[in-house]
């Protein structure tokens, strides 16, 4: 029997999941446990499709700042995805390709291993970052040309933004840079502005996300657009009126057009300069006090850390993935700003995906469809049973292995890692050590709760 291969792009906002050979397009599932006050119900992951009342939703997100911290919620969402309600896979007979954040912490990575092999008992799995998959996809491909050797992936998602240079399929970790701006921050920023200026929307994350996605754009001339909005705050070419949803009847608001039917009871949210000052933060994080350079400058900085003779190739192969690149005007603005930063002799080219949200999934799908996927990339459950998480540390080439594989031998690295409190071989350790550990944990539990 041929084994199923599950592809899971585990994003901070949504999970893109599917099975190789049956889901060319992923199922998009909220990565959250959402409680609806109106429905008096809690929806876990895919169940959110059943939600009827979108007012004041309470979100419990497994991912904080891009990293999985709440495994209870994460497992609940994954359970739903593997169950007969979504993918219906026997995990013990399947392989898994799952994405993790850039610079994932080693102690978090171990939990991935534990959950996937000890709880779901996958036959084998491969864990990597979203950007490292992109060269397997079609984002950079031009008809008739071989795929470029050097690419720069810009991943602007929900939790943060990364610029990731990749050479011959290998991420160059020393030049990967992170911008602490993502869709979550932008939504919250917009929420705050609107609540201060017009309606109190602080509890309406769901509605504000929809408003952000439908109204916001990236200005190509910030100064001029601000002047337009300032000159006539009531009528100008930028202003939009968003009709807030009447939550007793419909779920979605809409942008008011000339011919829209608007009742007197409808509440209208006016989007004036909010619609471009909010996504502007991607290009000017210092506008809200983040002491980081904007996206364009960060890309230039990352490229400057790369070998001189290859820099031109990176400049001419920049690719955009992630939901926050969907703001209209994103590519144009980035191109303009990069043009003032690029050395004279190089050309810039920016590739856009048809859908930047699912691009990583589609690339992962391509990789997982390769005949050598299981043998070349995956760690099997037997290997894990034998050597625990060090099996995946050896096989998955991430930021820590990139350095250590060349410079240090594995022996010098292990003792350093052993210091981590949670590290534990996955073969049952001597009974005494395990007991004492759990006891000490129970003892400190109250203290740690208080600290939280």
């Amino acid at each position: 029997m041929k084994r199923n291969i599950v592809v899971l792009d585990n994003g901070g906002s949504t999970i893109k999941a599917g099975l190789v050979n049956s889901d060319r397009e992923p199922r998009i599932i909220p990565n959250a446990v959402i409680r609806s006050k109106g429905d008096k119900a809690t929806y876990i992951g895919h169940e959110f499709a059943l939600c009827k009342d979108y007012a004041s939703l309470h979100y419990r997100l497994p991912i904080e700042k891009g990293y999985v911290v709440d495994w209870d919620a994460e497992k609940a969402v994954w359970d739903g995805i593997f169950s007969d309600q979504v993918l219906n896979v026997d995990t013990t007979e399947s392989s898994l390709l799952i994405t993790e954040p850039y610079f994932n912490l080693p102690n978090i990575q171990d939990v991935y291993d534990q959950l996937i092999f000890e709880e779901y008992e996958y036959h084998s799995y491969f864990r990597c970052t979203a950007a490292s998959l992109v060269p397997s996809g079609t984002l950079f491909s031009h008809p008739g040309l071989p795929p470029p050797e050097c690419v720069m992936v810009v991943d602007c998602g929900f939790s943060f933004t990364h610029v990731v240079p990749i050479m011959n399929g290998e991420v160059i970790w020393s030049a990967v840079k992170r911008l602490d701006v993502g869709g979550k921050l932008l939504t919250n920023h917009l929420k705050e502005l609107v609540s201060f200026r017009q309606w109190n929307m602080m509890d309406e994350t769901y509605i504000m996300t929809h408003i952000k996605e439908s109204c916001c754009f990236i200005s190509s001339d910030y100064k001029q657009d601000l002047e337009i909005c300032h000159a006539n705050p009531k009528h100008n070419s930028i202003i939009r009126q968003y009709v807030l949803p009447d939550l007793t009847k419909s779920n979605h608001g809409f942008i008011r057009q000339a011919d829209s039917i608007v009742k007197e009871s409808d509440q209208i949210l006016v989007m004036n300069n909010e619609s471009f000052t909010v996504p502007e933060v991607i290009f000017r994080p210092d506008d809200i006090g983040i002491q980081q350079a904007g996206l364009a400058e960060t890309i230039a900085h990352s490229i400057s850390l790369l070998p001189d003779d290859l820099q031109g190739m990176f400049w001419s192969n920049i690719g955009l993935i992630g939901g926050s690149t969907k703001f209209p005007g994103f590519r144009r603005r980035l191109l303009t700003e990069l043009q003032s930063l690029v050395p004279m002799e190089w050309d810039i080219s920016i590739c856009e995906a048809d859908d930047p949200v699912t691009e990583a999934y589609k690339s992962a799908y391509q990789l997982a469809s390769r005949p050598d996927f299981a043998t070349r990339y995956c760690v099997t459950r037997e290997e894990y049973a034998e050597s625990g998480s060090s099996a995946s540390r050896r096989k998955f080439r991430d930021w820590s292995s990139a350095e250590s594989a060349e410079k240090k031998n594995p022996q010098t690295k292990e003792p350093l890692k052993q210091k981590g409190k949670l590290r534990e071989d996955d073969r049952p350790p001597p009974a005494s050590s395990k007991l004492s550990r759990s006891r000490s944990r129970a003892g400190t539990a109250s203290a740690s709760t208080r600290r939280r």
Partner: protein
Amino acid sequence: MPPKRREQLARKAAVGSQVLDPEIIAKRTKRHLDELERSNYSEPTTLVSGQDEDDEEGGYSKGRARQTISDKRKVTIPGKSPAARSRKSTMNVRTALLYRKNFAALLDESNIATLPADEPTYLTAGAPPPTYPARLLCTVCGYFGSYKCRRCAMAYCNLNCESVHNETRCERRVL
């Protein structure tokens, strides 16, 4: 100058320097940025720093005996894995599910701070600081601000926005 007048001036100067302390402003900015990372809004008064929003469920005090979400939930996963059969999970998995740590704690525990400085990690990967000067934007209306509040150093653009600022933002935001 009469002594009283001098005293007044001194007090005024002290007030000015105390409030415009860049450290306080940096602290305020950081707190604001932390707020922007929250999944749910909670009133500032009930906010304890670093506390997670959704602790009310699951009774944190019961230790290992408390339930995970999956314990009380019925989904059908094919196969014979512990997840599918609701068999007892291994100790590792139980620990991960029951003891949630926030990102700061995990970062602390990961020991990546002890790695050599030339090794790229989460801590070294942040984008560099901007090379251009910050723009002053009105914190009330978003237009270019030309003035700074004397008490809290927030920018505003005209008299109208200044009065809004004084009424609403000024006291609230200052530490």
